[in-house]
């Protein structure tokens, strides 16, 4: 059997063995192995992708958080400001109202005092007038007890009228 002459038996067995091997390996080895490798590749790829997405989401979340924090801070600031303004306003209002009230009270008091004073003055005037009338009456009675004095009196009054 020359070494470059292919032997029939070996061709027969090689063909048979090769194709049986091809069939068995293709069905029970290559198919599951290739599938497993491909599945794993896909799962790794998708894992990497989802990790990337998670990272991006994390970053956006972080920026979101920061924004929220900033907004919250601003809101707090605004609220504080508002509260402060309100307080100031309240104080100012209270102060205004109080002084007004006080002024009103003062005014009322003043008016009453004035009224009382007027009333008192009137009273005093009336009293003085009464007193003056009483005095005048007594004087007149005393003065005009006789007719002569009355005549003199009228004369003097007549004289005064002529002078005018």
């Amino acid at each position: 059997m020359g070494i470059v002459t292919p032997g029939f038996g070996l061709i027969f067995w090689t063909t048979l063995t090769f194709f049986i091997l091809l069939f068995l390996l293709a069905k029970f080895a290559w198919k599951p192995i290739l599938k497993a490798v491909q599945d794993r590749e896909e799962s790794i790829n998708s894992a990497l992708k989802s990790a990337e997405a998670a990272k991006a989401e994390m970053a956006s979340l972080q920026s979101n958080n920061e924004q929220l924090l900033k907004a919250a801070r601003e809101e707090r600031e605004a609220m504080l400001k508002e509260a402060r303004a309100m307080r100031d306003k309240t104080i100012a209002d209270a102060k205004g109202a109080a002084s007004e009230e006080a002024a009103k009270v003062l005014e009322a008091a003043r008016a009453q005092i004035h009224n009382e004073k007027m009333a008192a003055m009137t009273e005093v005037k009336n009293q003085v007038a009464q007193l003056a009338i009483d005095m005048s009456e007594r004087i007149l009675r005393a003065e005009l007890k006789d007719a002569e004095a009355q005549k003199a009196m009228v004369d003097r009054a007549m004289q005064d009228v002529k002078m005018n």
Partner: protein
Amino acid sequence: MTKLNCFLLGLFLMASPAVLASEEAHSADEHAAEAHVHAAEHSDEHAANATEEKEAFNPAEVIMHHIADSHGWHLFDWNDHPVSIPLPVILYTEKGLVVFSSSEFHHDQEGTHVVKAGGQRFVNIHEKIYYASDVANDHGVFAEMDHETHEVANATPWDISITKNVAALLFSAVVILLLFLPAARSYKKNPNAAPKGVAGFVEPLVVFVRDDIAKNNIGPHYKRFVPMLLTIFFFIWINNLLGLVPFFPGGANVTGNIAVTMVLAIVTFVVTNVNGNKHYWGHIFWMPGLPVAVKPLLAIVEFIGIFTKPFSLMIRLFANITAGHIIVLSLVSLVFIFETVWVSPASVLLTLFISVLELLVAALQAYIFTLLTALYIGAAMHEEHH
């Protein structure tokens, strides 16, 4: 990729002289054997020289005996008696299937011992089985020689014996199955996990064949061919490696046998041409863009090319592996050629060196065969983009 291809081509070219060398050695061996078979004229001399001849070591004979296939698996010689594992001889004869053990030949390869089986008589002449002649010729050989061609003239049955190479082939098939079926099972057991154990060893190679050989060279429709390419790759590689193991059950020259490489090349040939598209055949029989006068000429060249491509695959693998076996055996034989033990350090060191090189060649040849198969398929399926 192209750099690698150049490198591989270089290796292939390197191997070519080795084939020629082995061819010469073989023919020399054949002549010697024929001389032995009909050493008619000087039969007395032959008898007288028998002991002397036995002493003389013939490395070419030993090496060729190893390179070729045989019906028994020779293990070693014990007290000048060969010890071998008998293998079944299966013959498809004129009277149907005949099966008997190779040990029935009693190590006879010269056609002097007739085996009677299934009502027929057979002789083994240089591991080829013939129908035995009724009577022996002058040298005790039960066969007629053709005096013109110096070949045995007897008829031969269809020999589908489990020879040494077939046994080694079946063993390697078992090894391959034992390697990959558990690997596949481990994937089923833990899907989407990092490969463990044998799967971890196998996976990079499988992915390499899939991505670097199939995907890169075949193109978008590569998936269909991956199982075939994987089988070819591992079939060749494992057989190459087992061939490097110097003792049973390794050491058979399976991928260095032209019948085996021929079957693989035919697989490539069939797959390539079955998948050839319009452009592929167009480029073979009516090459576009050429003067009409040149087209038929090129068609002839291209048509021959269909066959030379797989033929080169067949020869390349056969030559490389056979050359490796011849070199290792030659180096081992140095001790017997020089008949001194002092040459053994050189012999061992050189054998070690070549064996390591052969480990590389074993993987490389599997790679080249698979790569070129993928390339041929890719070229046959290539779509035109002018």
